[in-house]
């Protein structure tokens, strides 16, 4: 009998899992179930539709219907999984028409993602607080802009908050960002690197308020203002970007254990504590490569890598997920920022002693007219002298530097080795000494 694989969730990790399962097993019955109308679209692209770089939300759909049909993936959209029974190996689902169906599985992949998180702020039940997680969320924000919103308050200065803020400024809105922590991009960058990004955003007209907690939503039925740090801020549009929380309800109800991060606990095969049940993406945790602690990174890159591993295993293959470095990049107006591995602050939280080196340089020869500033910060573990993290902020060429250092970390390269790296140069393209190498030399001097 054909193997039955069910995947709950049909975005980044879910679709990846289903395709990986199909690659391994050409005859399996593979079913994808999603609550959303659209499957297989890029959430990460949502801010760029708002900004107008991408014409339509529809363009974010990475996998057209033909993909599912050609891979013989049975896609059930607008269908809610209401229960998982791991003893009977069944999934119960209710479709849009209200029809309940119980499906049998041999392997199950839980890819239920995460939901936008709203802290328990006074007045949060009021209407008009938007977020940006789904295409439907994006359509609501776009509609509000088309309806003439002139100003927006965005709560949270993470990637989604800032990317959305940039998009709305590009659409002509006045944007105020309110962040509880003393810096922007607190998960991604150290304060010294975040400051460069913040200054660029402020030059472009973004108002950034850090170190202020949102205390209350004001207004009768609809939110008209917020109170933050004792100050009233009015706007036409309110967007919560407080972050996301793993959507684990189905798993918890089914008795599938969560881990220390409150996301679904998995092993190196992305299998949960229950045999033949896998969990991937924003709802699952996996170990950090450096600290070996479980993390729930909630990045699209991690989601698809986990999905591929789980899908292969679910179809009878053997595949391991090697852990999270959480490499990430963003572009905000004309500045790019990236991270891989641990920041200095994250290292300190994990009691890892580090030596850092930060070098400001140019993306081309200093005398070359298109040269833009770029800054590289290296984080090196003191005893082993291994590189455990890096951040790059600059006008260009950030991504591939982050990738290069990511490989270096994965290969456990020492800072001494990086200082000898053979990097490429031509006046329009790079400095003779790549700033990564200079940052490594700086760390070596401190280690003397």
């Amino acid at each position, binding site marked *: 009998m054909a193997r039955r694989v069910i995947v709950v969730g049909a975005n980044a990790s879910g679709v990846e899992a289903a*395709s990986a399962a*199909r690659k391994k097993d050409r005859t399996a019955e593979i079913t994808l179930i999603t609550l959303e109308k659209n499957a297989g679209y890029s959430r990460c692209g949502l801010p760029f539709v708002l900004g107008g770089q991408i014409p339509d939300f529809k363009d974010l759909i990475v996998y057209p*219907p033909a*993909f599912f049909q050609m*891979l013989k993936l049975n896609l059930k959209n607008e269908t809610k999984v209401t229960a998982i029974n791991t003893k009977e190996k069944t999934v119960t689902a209710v479709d849009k028409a209200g029809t309940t169906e119980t499906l049998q599985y041999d392997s199950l992949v839980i890819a239920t993602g995460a939901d936008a998180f709203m802290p328990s702020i006074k007045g949060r039940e009021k209407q008009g607080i938007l977020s940006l997680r789904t295409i439907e969320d994006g359509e609501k924000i776009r509609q509000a802009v088309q309806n003439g919103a002139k100003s927006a308050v965005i709560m949270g200065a993470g990637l989604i908050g800032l990317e959305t803020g940039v998009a709305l400024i590009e659409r002509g809105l006045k944007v105020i960002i309110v962040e509880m922590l003393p810096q922007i991009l607190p998960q991604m960058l150290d304060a010294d690197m975040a400051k460069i990004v913040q200054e660029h955003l402020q030059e472009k007209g973004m108002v950034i308020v850090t170190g202020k907690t949102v205390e209350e939503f004001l207004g009768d039925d609809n939110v008209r203002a917020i109170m933050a740090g004792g100050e009233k801020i009015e706007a036409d549009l309110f967007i919560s970007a407080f972050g996301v929380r793993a959507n684990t309800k189905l798993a918890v109800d089914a008795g599938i254990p969560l881990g220390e991060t409150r996301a679904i606990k998995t092993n190196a095969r992305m299998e949960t504590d229950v045999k033949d049940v896998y969990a991937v993406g924003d709802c699952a945790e996996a170990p950090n490569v450096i600290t070996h602690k479980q993390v729930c990174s909630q990045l699209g890159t991690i989601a698809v890598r986990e999905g591929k591993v789980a899908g292969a295993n679910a179809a009878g293959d053997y595949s391991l997920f090697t852990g999270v470095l959480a490499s990430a990049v963003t572009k905000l107006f004309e500045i790019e920022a990236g991270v891989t591995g641990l920041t200095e602050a994250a290292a300190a939280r994990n009691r890892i002693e580090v030596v850092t080196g930060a070098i400001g340089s140019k993306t081309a020869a200093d005398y070359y007219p298109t040269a833009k500033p770029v800054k590289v910060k290296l984080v090196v573990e003191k005893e082993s002298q291994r590189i455990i993290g890096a951040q790059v902020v600059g006008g260009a060429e950030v991504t591939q530097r982050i990738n290069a250092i990511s490989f270096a970390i994965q290969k456990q390269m020492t800072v001494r080795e990086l200082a000898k790296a053979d990097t490429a140069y031509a006046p329009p393209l790079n400095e003779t000494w790549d700033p990564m190498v200079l940052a490594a030399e700086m760390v070596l001097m401190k280690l003397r």
Partner: protein
Amino acid sequence: MVKVEGYEVPEGLYYSKDFEWIKIEGDKVRMGVTDYAQKSLREIVYAELPSAGGEVKQGEPYGTVESVKAVSDLIAAISGTIEEVNGEVQSKPELLNEDPYVKGWLLVVKPANLQAELANLMDFAKAVEWHKAQAQSK
């Protein structure tokens, strides 16, 4: 060349709902996969095709194409005896992405029952409508 929602749909071909096209060339039929199919599969890295002399049957698989992220059966749009197989596609599967309607053809078949089987395929006008509907459902 007509483009429907970004997918090329040439005139003069017949199309199946399994993403294949056929072109009638005298008493023979050339077949391959559509632009929509190759764009959905993305970078195709492998094509497994049958040998000349074999038979294909309408609606049944005769080979597979594999991309970095996907694998799909090739479903015959008509029945017949295989006269030619595009060996170039086997050594250069990227031809399916670069030129699915010309250099990326897959088989030349001597049809067994062409007139009756054409009724199960879409002509150009129907194929345009179908591609539109596919794109809208996404």
